[in-house]
């Protein structure tokens, strides 16, 4: 187990830059999530860490050791593949012990290790089963056990849960996270599912077009997105185009809003986007005057159970507000209301 360090890592496929100059450090024992839409380079970056793809530039270090030139089979990683890639001609025990067999570990020891790992993934006693006899969730666990069999320095997971149905996936996310914390192994999970990233990660690495957009804890990424892309990709957000008036004031669609924190390097008149999460948007019936309050008409209501979503047309500006059911204001479709965009919830983005 080690710190994983990437410095200036790039990968070109012909003229396209799949991964563009990535610097990253994953502290020992932490789980980092590479999150982004398909084609953002997250899988290519993971494959370079695994040694399955050679970087066009940059260095990859496990701890103090530069592994950039090391082939996959000498790198000491454990990887769970998207297709799981369990060997169809071997049984569960043989799959898990495959790496040990390559190393020439005696059979007795291999069997013991396979049993131990099946215990770890909570699937004892299935060593002699065959892969086709297992359910999706069981195969998942076998693939995880196999990847951990050699006590790898880094544990890599390439969208491993994508084949599972939604409910099982949620269960496995929690279980896998608990397992990772128990083993305490430096891990990287590639996913395009932001919920999965938020559930499992110590740190989230948001990527787009081969470049890292933001690195931070799940909450940081959610509360303080670094740019419009991150704000849109992680959860949903009200994105209001406007410009800076002065100091802590911004002008959005004819309304002046106060913002709690203004990023450095913006002059008055600079064009910006204000991001406000729907659940931060306050809503009350009637037209009231308050700080950062906007008046408008309700155009759409839907109750999805965990919250009620309102869409409000504030003289041409559409704002979405999510309210928990018990705080639901007494308003109907077409009512005039006041929405409040709290100053500390307004994030100013370039």
């Amino acid at each position, binding site marked *: 187990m080690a710190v994983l360090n990437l410095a200036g890592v790039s990968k070109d496929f012909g003229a396209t830059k799949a991964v563009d100059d990535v610097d990253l450090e994953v502290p020992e024992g932490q789980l980092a999530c590479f999150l982004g839409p398909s084609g953002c380079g997250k899988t290519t970056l993971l494959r370079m860490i695994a040694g*399955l793809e050679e970087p066009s530039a940059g260095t990859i270090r496990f701890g103090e050791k530069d592994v950039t030139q090391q082939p996959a*089979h000498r790198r000491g990683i454990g990887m769970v593949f998207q297709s799981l890639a369990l060997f169809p*001609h071997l049984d569960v025990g043989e799959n898990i012990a495959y790496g040990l067999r390559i190393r020439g570990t005696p059979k007795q020891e291999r069997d013991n290790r396979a049993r131990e790992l099946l215990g770890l993934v909570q699937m004892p006693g299935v060593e002699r089963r065959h892969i086709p006899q297992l359910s999706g969730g069981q195969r998942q666990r076998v693939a995880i056990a196999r990847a951990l069999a050699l006590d790898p320095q880094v544990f890599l997971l390439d969208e491993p849960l994508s084949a599972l149905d939604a409910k099982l996936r949620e269960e496995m996310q929690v279980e896998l996270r608990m397992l990772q914390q128990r083993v305490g192994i430096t891990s990287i999970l590639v996913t395009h599912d932001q919920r999965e990233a938020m559930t499992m990660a110590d740190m989230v690495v948001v990527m787009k077009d081969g470049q890292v957009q933001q690195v931070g804890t799940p909450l940081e990424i959610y509360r303080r997105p670094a740019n419009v892309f991150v704000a849109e990709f992680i959860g949903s957000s009200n994105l209001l185009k406007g410009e800076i008036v002065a100091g802590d004031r911004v002008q959005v669609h004819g309304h002046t809003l106060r913002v709690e924190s203004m990023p450095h390097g913006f002059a008055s008149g600079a064009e910006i986007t204000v991001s406000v999460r729907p659940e931060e948007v306050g809503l009350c019936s009637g037209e009231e005057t308050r700080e950062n309050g906007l008046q408008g008409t309700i155009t759409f209501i839907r109750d999805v159970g965990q919250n009620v979503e309102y869409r409000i047309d504030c003289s041409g500006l559409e704002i979405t507000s999510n309210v928990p059911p018990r705080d639901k204001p007494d308003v109907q479709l077409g009512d005039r209301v006041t929405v409040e965009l709290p100053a500390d919830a307004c994030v100013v983005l370039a």
Partner: protein
Amino acid sequence: MTTARRSWAPIGLLSYPTLMLGVFFLIPFGIMFATSFFERDPIAFYRPAFVFDQYARLATSLFIDHLLFSLYLAVFVSVISIGLAFPFTYLLTRMRLRTQTLWLVFVLSVLSLSEVIVGFSWSMLLSRTAGLSNVLVWLGILEEAVAWAPSFGAVVVGYLYLTLPYTVLILYPPLSRIDPELTEAARTLGASPLRAFFNVVIPSTRTPIIASMILVFVFTLGVFLIPNLLGRPRHWTLSVLITDQAVYQSNPPFAAALAVFLLATSAALILITLWLSRRKRVATT
């Protein structure tokens, strides 16, 4: 009775291939099988009878030797054929799709050449006067031109030329379906690329490997021009002798007996192979 009516549909569908198989395989085979018990008549070719004379003649060492040689050659060629075609096809499936298509078209076009053309071309290429050895002399590798045909090697080369396209075409679909993540998984677990190939790719394509070996084996047993053109008489397979008996010696009953014998022997070998491979699979399952 809907169930009764429905059960007729598959029978109707199956009747066509059954009919074709009956007309074009079983009836000729039946005639041949019957002929093998006939007596030879030097004037009218044969006379209907029920004697075992022809089968008794098989027991001579000459025919046993040729049978053993035929089987040996067929096994040898099918093993070499797989040995060459498997890595080739595997590498082919890793290439760009356009490259794959071009290669497959090329491989298929080889199939359009008849056995006669292939046989004559190779006898030319391996001859002393006009063959490839002259090129080696010109390059300074050989002292003087040599004749590589007729020889056992020339026979094997001729057979391989005919069997390789079939082997590639049988292996191509299963090999292109192999999940590339399987070998990658083996590599992340410490296997070198070569080891991953032997540990993962070959075991997961056992069935197509056996299937193509059987096909090449059967195909090789039936070829009769190649040993004639590229081999010496001692390289003649049973197929050559069957042709010889039927066409030149005017002895259809004996040719029929030889054919039945060859068919029975090869069918037995194939059944043993299938039985062994199934038993192996059951043992590992």
